[in-house]
């Protein structure tokens, strides 16, 4: 049931796993293992809407552009394989890191997280060149203020509006603006990257995911930012992003069961102290293997479906769908946040600064406390 739910939320654009989990929880299906399977499956499959349609969520926001770029280059299935295998590797690599994590988690203090985020923000801004440093700072601050204003609202899906606006809608609008579109090609699924590099970047992603789960509101995308400084090409960066995403989810669960800290929306629906560490690891491995087995054929089927639809109308339909979803989730307030985030995202595109600066949406709030 969890895997089915996670698959549904994973492949549908804009449907966050938290939304679906809250829905099934309302229907009385609130078992921790179901929620675990649902959340984990989602981290494997959220590559589909983010790469094929350019619709991100909090885990894949930074991966949207490079993934979408690879898809437009005719390497869609390679992106899917990178996502599936780096996610699976993250689960496997999580196991030996668990004893370290269990010692680290209780030591975390908010001041440590704040310093780390401040350092990261400085790195993002100062790696821009010349006048762009100022532009980057402006985007960082605007995103940050938008984030702070958004979290004051009582929204059910604040991350949806923010990330869709900052990272998704600008991509779709840019696509709509473009005159010609190459057709979506599945291409070869072989990962054009050495095995050892793939493993190494996946390990890096897992460690960064571990760090992300320690710091509140420090999302996978923020952790992947660090990866962006170390990875020089799209494939290695995507490996880091997807590993971070999955590792962050698993470590968040471990954090919750060991210290009670709530680090993501799925965990907030869970009951504390009811899943043992062994059960968690075994269930994660099972879910990971299962999703890896059917993930590629499923993504290929989705791609075939999308190929039948002209790209511009498809993008326009997705745009309308995302706006309607925002309205459904949180009404006018949600729409307002989506609009604000989309404007900031577009401004970043026009100013020509890296989209990572938009992560100020979460970072500024942490820095100022």
């Amino acid at each position, binding site marked *: 049931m969890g895997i089915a739910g996670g698959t549904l939320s994973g492949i549908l654009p804009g449907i966050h796993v938290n939304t679906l989990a809250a829905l099934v929880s309302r229907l009385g299906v609130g078992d921790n293992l179901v929620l675990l399977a649902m959340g984990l499956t989602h981290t494997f499959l959220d590559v589909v809407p983010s790469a094929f349609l350019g619709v991100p969520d909090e885990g894949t926001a930074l991966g949207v552009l490079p993934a979408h770029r690879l898809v437009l280059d005719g390497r869609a299935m390679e992106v899917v394989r990178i996502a599936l295998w780096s996610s699976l590797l993250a689960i496997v690599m999580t196991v030996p890191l668990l004893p370290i994590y269990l010692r680290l988690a209780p030591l975390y203090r908010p001041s440590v997280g704040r310093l780390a985020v401040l350092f990261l923000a400085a790195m993002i801004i100062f790696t821009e060149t010349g006048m762009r440093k100022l532009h980057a700072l402006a985007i960082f601050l605007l995103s940050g203020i938008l984030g702070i204003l958004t979290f004051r609202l*009582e929204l059910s899906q604040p991350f949806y509006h923010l990330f869709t606006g900052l990272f998704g809608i600008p991509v779709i609008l840019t696509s709509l603006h473009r005159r010609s579109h190459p057709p979506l090609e599945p291409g070869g699924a072989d990962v054009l990257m050495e095995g050892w590099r793939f493993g190494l970047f996946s390990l890096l992603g897992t460690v960064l995911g571990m760090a992300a789960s320690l710091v509140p509101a420090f999302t996978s995308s923020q952790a992947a930012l660090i990866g962006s400084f170390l990875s020089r090409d799209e494939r290695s960066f995507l490996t880091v992003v997807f590993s971070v995403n999955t590792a962050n989810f698993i470590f968040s669960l471990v954090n919750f069961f060991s210290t009670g800290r709530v680090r993501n929306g799925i965990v*907030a629906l869970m009951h504390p102290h009811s899943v043992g560490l062994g059960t968690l690891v075994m269930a994660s491995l099972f879910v990971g293997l299962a999703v890896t087995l059917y993930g590629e054929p499923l993504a290929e089927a989705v791609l075939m479906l999308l190929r039948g639809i002209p790209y511009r109308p498809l993008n326009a339909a997705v745009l309308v769908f995302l706006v309607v979803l925002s309205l459904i989730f949180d009404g006018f307030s949600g729409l*307002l946040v989506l609009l604000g985030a989309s404007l900031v995202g577009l401004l970043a595109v026009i100013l020509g600064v890296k989209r990572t600066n938009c992560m100020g949406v979460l970072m500024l709030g942490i820095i100022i406390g």
Partner: protein
Amino acid sequence: MVSRKTRIMVLIIAIIMVMGALLRTGNERMDSSHFVGLCVRTGDGFSVLTDGKRTVGVYASLEIGRVYLVRGILLNTTRGLRMRPETIGEAEPTFPLDHITGAYWPSRGYSLLTPERVRLALPLQVRKGELVEVAGLWYGGRFYPINTTSRGFLTRPEDGMPWTVEGTVIGTGAGTILWNGSEEIVLYLPYGIKPRPGERIRVTGRTRFYSRLSLLVDSPDDVVVLGRAAVKPLEVARIGEIAAGECAVTGTGRFLRLNCTGLKLAGFSARTGDTVRFEALRRKSSLLCLNCTVTVPREDLPNGICSFSPGRLARISGKVSWVRIYRNGFGLANVTQDRCWVLLKLRKSLGASIETNGSVTAYGLFTTYRNMPALEIKSGDDLCSGNC
């Protein structure tokens, strides 16, 4: 063509307008703070904590009845205080608690009987009917227990309070009667629960002082059969114990009269003169047959016509030498055998007719009639004339 600069300006103005709108619609954010409270409601990733004075909604699934320390961002919304948690941990209550002492009564929900019914939000980890002191909080008309201290069970019945009592079932009429060693208790049991007489049971119910001490039992689980009452010889058996013995029947009717005890035996039928072996429940003024058999039928008794002994049960058999019926209906028949004779008292109510020179067999008690040996019979069934 719109210049890049214009587009940037338009975007910035639009962003400022959107942020202004967000600023106006947003909630007042309070400082990062912490709250210790008891979880009283949960579901859909949202829980309600209360400390008795303040109620805070927390965006997390927590467990009802546990006390949590939640650190996070407190928001003052139109629907009350809300907190986005950063850390959640279980904690000891730091707020004042209400205390209630009563007996735990999980029936149609969970409650404490004081003896008024206090509705509990959660079950307690104590046995039904156990007296407890509960510390907790009131919320929504229900009491949420946090700490529970057991005070044992009530040793004496109190009106309206639960009471657990052990004893022997000594009656199963309109209400089941239980003997606890000192008094009779009327049990009103759930439908379908019928303990058998002689069974020792432990029963928990709510005491009521009606005309008799009564116990209202509301669940089949509250009736536990412990076994059978102790079997003792008739002479030493006390109320609630099973008396065992072997006696001759001296009289019949709704009860049997026995020659070995003044107590009547109920629940078994035999004839005068039969010898009965019985295991019978000793009650206040009678014995209730549980396992009774006729060991010696009266036909096997020896002819006692030559061994007259006043007050003794006997069978006499012989020929009727004469019969005399008086005006008032009372009659006498002289029964002879060899050289022995006994007068047979024939009450009018027996409706018996005996003829001279006929054979007769009678079962009854030896007595005298004007200082002469006689036999008194209780019913017509105890007399057989002709070929017996």
